[in-house]
């Protein structure tokens, strides 16, 4: 049954969608159609549930009837078990879409005497498939046969025949198997089922259990090769791909305001890009939540649906606290644009948190999400796990073009360098804003600055901000002789500046007056000189006149 991949680009490997959240993504469309798939794993790792979900979703979503042949649980138990997960088998059975057949193999009841084959099983299965025209079949767990029957040679031969028969029937089958010591399954089923093998695993690390799934092989198709965590919750199984296979989400160039007066101006573009993710980090009490609430408020004012995940405060507390600085979140909740979800991070494992986020996002369809703070999640997982969860979260949000703002509490370090939580996300985020304490003599001021902002110019200044009853305000930059001034230095610098300004003003006035005086003196001098000049001129004129007169007189005398 070697399968050769065609060169043709149009060729699409026929697949049956699994109906399991996320599994279709990593298998590139589902299980191989018309072939058996082996699902193996230890006890309690979700094999039965996964296969049941495959059948039920096949019926409800793709109208493909299915047969569930259980070698372990009686069909009533099975019905009950999956009912708790919201699947109503009884109805599907009544609609002739599903057949659940319990094959009981009781060693004590069976005696082997001579040659036999498993035609009985084939006939049962064939009858079930034919009676509802099933295209999906589950055999859970066929290895039980090995416990009930002695003749291994016959069994193996018959199993091989069974898988060939299933293929010939053209049904998409799932065969489950218990994990063996050195082999994938205890009885080496992987020898017979060679098209697609999936391993489920349930591990406990640091008292936190995580279920994982891995595709060991998938003939004729590309698939994700990593171990993907998966969850079993009220809606069944969902697999969370660690990352999408590609990074090719659409990006938006829309700019959205941060909501904090003054902060927008620190970005040359005037705000965040839509769909970007922003990290606000800082030590305790540096107003991270306040900034986050401002952003939420701003988004809600623009009728953008927003979800606020608070891992520290209850919604009521958050609303009350924000009211004290003039941010009214309650009205947005009433209007339906804002949802606040509070839970302790230790409530459940990281994966479940992620799933909760996913679900809420699916239900509410928000355009903005705030997670306050992500650093609290560290308490439930190791750095790697938190990081991988955040990568997946960010991936998912990016794919949906959701703007997200994280806050992160970092420990007070001397270096002001990133802490665990920051380190795990800093390379993932687009914009990183840090708020920090600037401690001086007897006072503490808050400063805000942008560490990075992908794709936009930004200010390099550390801006001081204050929080008053009226809200948060970024103060203008005050440049002193030794750099930017904050707090009381800013105040004293202001007073000093005022005084020097006044002095300067007085000086100018004094100088003005002096000039005025000098001008007056100058003018007086000019007047005096002019007078002198005039009198001299007059004297000269008199002299000239006298001369003339004298000359006239002498000439007259001569004539006579």
């Amino acid at each position, binding site marked *: 049954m070697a399968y050769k991949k065609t060169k043709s680009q149009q060729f699409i490997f026929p697949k049956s969608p699994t109906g399991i959240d996320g599994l279709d993504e990593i298998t590139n469309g589902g299980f191989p159609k018309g072939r058996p798939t082996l699902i193996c794993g230890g006890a309690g790792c979700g094999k039965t549930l996964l296969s049941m979900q495959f059948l039920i979703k096949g019926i409800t979503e793709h109208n493909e009837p299915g047969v569930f042949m259980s070698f372990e649980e009686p069909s009533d138990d099975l019905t009950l078990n999956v009912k708790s997960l919201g699947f109503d088998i009884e109805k599907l059975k009544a609609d002739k879409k599903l057949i659940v057949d319990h094959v009981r193999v*009781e060693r004590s009841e*069976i005696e082997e*005497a*001579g*040659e036999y084959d498993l035609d*009985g099983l084939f006939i*049962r299965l064939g009858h079930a498939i034919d009676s509802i025209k099933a295209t999906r079949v589950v055999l859970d767990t066929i290895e039980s*046969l090995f416990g009930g029957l002695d003749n291994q040679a016959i069994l193996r031969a018959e199993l091989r025949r069974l898988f060939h028969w299933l293929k010939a029937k053209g049904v998409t089958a799932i065969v489950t198997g218990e994990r063996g010591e050195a082999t994938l399954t205890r009885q080496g089923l992987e020898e017979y089922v060679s098209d697609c093998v999936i391993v489920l695993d349930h591990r406990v690390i640091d008292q936190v259990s995580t279920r994982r799934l891995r595709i060991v092989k998938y003939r004729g198709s590309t698939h994700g090769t990593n171990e993907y965590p998966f969850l079993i919750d009220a809606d069944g199984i969902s697999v969370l791909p660690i990352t999408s296979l590609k990074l090719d989400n659409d990006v938006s160039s829309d700019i959205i305001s941060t909501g904090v007066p003054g902060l927008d101006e620190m970005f040359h573009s005037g705000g965040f890009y839509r769909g970007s993710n922003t990290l606000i980090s800082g030590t305790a009490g540096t107003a991270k939540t306040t900034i986050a609430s401002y952003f939420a408020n701003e988004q809600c004012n623009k009728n953008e649906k927003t979800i606020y995940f608070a891992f520290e405060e209850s919604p009521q507390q958050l609303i009350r606290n924000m009211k004290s600085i003039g941010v009214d979140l309650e009205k947005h909740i009433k209007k339906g644009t804002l949802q606040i979800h509070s839970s302790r991070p230790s409530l459940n494992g990281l994966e479940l948190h992620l799933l909760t986020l996913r679900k809420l996002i699916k239900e509410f369809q928000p355009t903005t999400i705030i997670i306050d703070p992500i650093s609290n999640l560290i308490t439930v997982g190791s750095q790697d796990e938190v990081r991988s969860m955040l990568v997946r979260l960010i991936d998912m949000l990016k794919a949906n073009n959701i703007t997200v703002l994280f806050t992160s509490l970092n420990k007070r370090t001397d270096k002001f360098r990133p802490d665990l939580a920051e380190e795990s996300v800093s390379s993932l985020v687009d914009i990183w804003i840090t708020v920090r304490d600037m401690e001086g003599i007897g006072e503490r001021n808050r400063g805000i600055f942008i560490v990075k902002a992908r794709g936009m110019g930004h200010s390099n200044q550390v801006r001081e901000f204050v929080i008053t009853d009226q809200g948060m305000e970024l103060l203008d930059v005050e440049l002193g002789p030794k750099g930017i001034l904050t707090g009381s230095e800013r105040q004293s610098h202001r007073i000093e500046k005022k005084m020097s300004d006044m002095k300067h003003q007085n000086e100018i006035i004094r100088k003005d007056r002096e000039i005025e005086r000098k001008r007056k003196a100058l003018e007086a001098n000019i007047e005096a000189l002019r007078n002198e000049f005039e009198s001299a001129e007059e004297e000269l004129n008199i002299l000239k006149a006298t001369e003339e007169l004298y000359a006239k007189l002498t000439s007259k005398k001569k004539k006579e």
Partner: protein
Amino acid sequence: MKKEVVAEWQLLLYIAGQTPKSIKALENIKKYAEEHLAGKYSIEIIDLLKNPQLAEGDQILAVPTLVRKFPEPIRKIIGDLSNEERVLVGLNIKPLNP
């Protein structure tokens, strides 16, 4: 071959068509029954190819399967029944003439 008393031994033989194995099994069980249970047994043959829905009721996996319906508890013997000793042990029949 019976009828004075209600058959004390009710045996069912499940087969899937007239295969050599099923024919052999039928021959074998008839022989043993005549030998050890003469007059107090009944054998019913069920062909699953004709009645596939009957396979579920008695939890038939392998064919041929001989089911001892009565006396209780139900016992099953699979195979062509060529091993007489095992059949007798399986049916819990004590050989009359040891």
